[in-house]
């Protein structure tokens, strides 16, 4: 299933250009200049590093895994050894149980970790709590696998840091010029206006349980809303965990009828995973107004398809401008593009004279946000 990626190159000379174009090493440089494809290659299980014998974000169980962040399509249970930030390890333990792997090893941000003759370092990605980019380095060649990332400030996690590298592996979830995420604060203001305009209705806000939920809650608090917020049971543990990490979320109550009569939810804000809104769970609320916080809400047809009445464009991924700015700031020799709209981002790189190719990794959701 893994097609050998087509290499598209345009523009100025890159250190390893000659080697790539001929499929062998330039004789005058000897064995000291490695090819990036020797350091990381896409495999069925995920991105594989042959000299270190590890995978990054493998989609099935492997002996040694390095995990960028805790979302289920990147962090799976059943690996032999897992290296990740302490927060990501905590999140995996919360989701899969403490025995999700045979052994775990916490990676501090910036700490150089040696795996065989490869050096890896974790750098903040700004996506969700604990999310990291992973830099893989050997013989002076550095590749950064950024996982999912977001350069704009987020009160619930460490800020993204650009890391200089030869090859930058970027996601492409929102890699179309139509995706420009507005300021999240203004979207929260729209939510709060709708709440005050509809005092008899319960606002059901769809949020993914890791990251988006806590960020939206924190933003609601930052906007000055201090009333209790109601959460679906699926959010409880991760909200508790964020609290334990010093991210104050204010008063959260379980959204259950046992706790309150139907009328109590009038004018309330209830957060839950969007999949719950089709469930019987939604019936307990008075005349629910369905909202959804996601970068996809930028496109009207997507919002209507989901039956969303109040779309909130709040994303934990880089938008189009941020992808471009990040690539410009990182200034890599080459860009590899994965999960999402690869072709548009590859096209943009071509126009900038940056060599780029799609990676065709299998198994990542390009829909989650």
């Amino acid at each position, binding site marked *: 299933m893994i097609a050998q990626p087509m290499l598209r190159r345009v523009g100025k000379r890159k250190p390893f250009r000659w080697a790539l174009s001929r499929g062998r090493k330039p004789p005058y440089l000897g064995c000291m200049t490695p090819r990036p494809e020797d350091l990381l290659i896409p495999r069925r299980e995920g991105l594989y590093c042959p000299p270190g014998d590890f995978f990054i974000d493998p989609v099935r169980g492997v002996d040694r895994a390095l995990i960028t962040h805790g979302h289920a399509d990147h962090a799976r249970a059943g690996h032999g050894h897992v290296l990740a930030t302490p927060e990501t390890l905590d999140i995996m333990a919360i989701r899969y149980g403490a025995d999700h792997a045979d052994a775990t090893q916490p990676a501090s941000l910036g700490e150089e970790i040696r795996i065989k003759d490869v050096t890896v370092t974790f750098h903040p990605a700004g996506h969700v709590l604990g999310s990291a980019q992973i830099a893989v380095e050997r013989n002076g060649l550095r590749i950064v696998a950024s996982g999912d990332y977001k350069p704009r400030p987020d009160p619930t996690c460490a800020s993204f840091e650009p890391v200089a590298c030869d090859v930058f592996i970027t996601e492409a979830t929102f890699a179309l010029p*139509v995706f420009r995420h*507005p300021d999240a604060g203004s979207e929260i203001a729209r939510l709060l206006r709708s709440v005050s305009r509809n005092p008899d209705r319960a606002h059901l806000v769809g949020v993914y349980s890791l990251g988006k939920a806590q960020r939206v809650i924190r933003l609601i608090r930052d906007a000055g809303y201090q009333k209790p917020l109601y959460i679906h049971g699926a959010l409880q543990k991760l909200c508790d965990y964020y609290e334990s990490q010093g991210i104050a979320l204010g008063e959260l109550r379980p959204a259950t009828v046992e706790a309150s009569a139907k009328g109590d939810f009038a004018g309330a804000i209830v957060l839950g995973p969007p999949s719950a809104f*089709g469930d019987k769970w*939604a*019936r307990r609320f008075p005349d629910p107004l369905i909202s959804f916080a996601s970068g996809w809400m930028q*496109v*009207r*047809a997507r919002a209507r398809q989901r039956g969303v009445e109040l779309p909130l464009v709040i994303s934990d991924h880089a938008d189009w401008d941020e992808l471009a700015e990040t690539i410009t700031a990182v200034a890599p020799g080459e860009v590899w593009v994965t999960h999402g709209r690869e072709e*548009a981002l590859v096209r943009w790189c071509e126009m900038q004279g940056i060599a780029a190719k799609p990676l065709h990794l299998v198994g990542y959701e390009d829909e989650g946000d």
Partner: protein
Amino acid sequence: MNRFADLLDMLAFTPSRNAKLALLQDYFRTVPDPERGYALAAIARDLDIPAVKPAQLRELISARMDPELFAYSYDYVGDLAETIALAWPEKETARAGRNDAPGLAEVVETLQASSRRDGPRLVEDWLDRLDAPGRYALLKLVTGGFRMGLSGRLIKQALAGFGQVEVNEIEELWHGLTPPYLELFAWLEGGGDKPVNAAAAPFRPVMLSHAVELTDFDKLDPDDFTAEWKWDGIRVQATSERGVNRLYTRTGDDISAAFPDLVDAIAFDGALDGELLVARPGGEGIETGTFSDLQQRLNRKTVTAKQLRDHPAFFRAYDILQDGAFDLRAKPFLERRARLESFVAELDPMRFDVSQLLPFTTWHELSLLRADPPFAVIEGVMIKRKLSPYVPGRPKGEWYKWKRDPFLIDAVLMYAQRGHGKRSGYYSDYTFGVWRDEGELVPVGKAYFGFTDEELLKIDKYVRDNTIERFGPVRSVRAGPDKGLVFEVAFEGINRSTRHKSGVAMRFPRISRLRWDKPPAEADRLETLERMIDGTE
């Protein structure tokens, strides 16, 4: 522009009618003149500005961004105005730090004062000064692309609610008014007199009927009533004054432009109430066509020569409201009727005739006529009190409609979609199908009412227990010859349709009964529906 863009967005995403009314009224209350008036005109599609063509918009965006990237974007979004609004580059423009986003009034007034040729240049400048929601509203405005699902009726009701007046007062005035409707808003806010409708050939609010209940017949004396066929066309008002001819729908929308053949034949001074129908050409007099014939002329802003030739429109008169200078509305029905017959006798017999009165002495006799109408495009009988004056609205005890029994079929539930608002959390919108050859179900319609709350609970449980696949808010439900839920579906009519896979389209379908007892294999077949169409043609 932003307040207007906000309104458009909220109207587009709000499913509930009452919530839409509230949004419009809130907008009228909080936005000043003339902005609110132009917004009203835009939504009511009553705004006359030089349009900008999609090809011109494509040219504008091509000059600003890579065509390949635009193509990827358009492919994903699927709507030209939305794609341009979202993808319009902001960084290179001078917008940053500027505070001169154009308002709706500025846009409309500038466009009205410019030539069509200037359109693209103006739009380009505004696109640079607006944000994405503003750009979307602007592009929809200049391409005339509002498809908001807002009926003229709903807009007029919003105005009536805003000003605490009767909706027919708005309908009566509407066609004498022009954007930005300063007089109208002044009156609705209590700050001015009711505008005088100075336009020629104004709309006169129509008189409507109640559905008759079988128990009503005990209390009604047949001698006091007349009856006529209830034609299944479009209820219209044809009116002419000072050389201005107009054709209105029953809610006062001017549809003259779509029926030039009929409008040209309004060679009188007065106002008639009747049914717009389509004739089969070539006969001696009017030969009434089918509903399918009529469909060829519906929902069109303009009409081709071929449509005019093959599907000529005509007017079957029910009533006369105005004859020259005489307002006849206070006269009893039979007196108006006599005047109507002599009035129509003077008109083009290929374009105008009078609805026939049905002979009957007892309600039973009328029921026999109702059961066997001579044309399929008859949907029942109208019963009118001989002494009834013509009163706008729906006065009690004057006119009754007695519709024919609906068509019924048994169909199998195929897909269910989650409802909105109070029906959130319930699968309440159903797509149902009938059998085609080789044991395949083909969807033939959608219905979301006709059942009780208790039945909804049971259907919802059935949907959840028998889901095969989920696509967002839609579930595909198990449906085969042995396993499936059968609905008895009632509907008012059925037509051929090229838009639907099944080739048929029902009118006004609803669930009339749940057939838990019926094996799905015994549900109806597509041929049965096709025969129903043949029967109505």
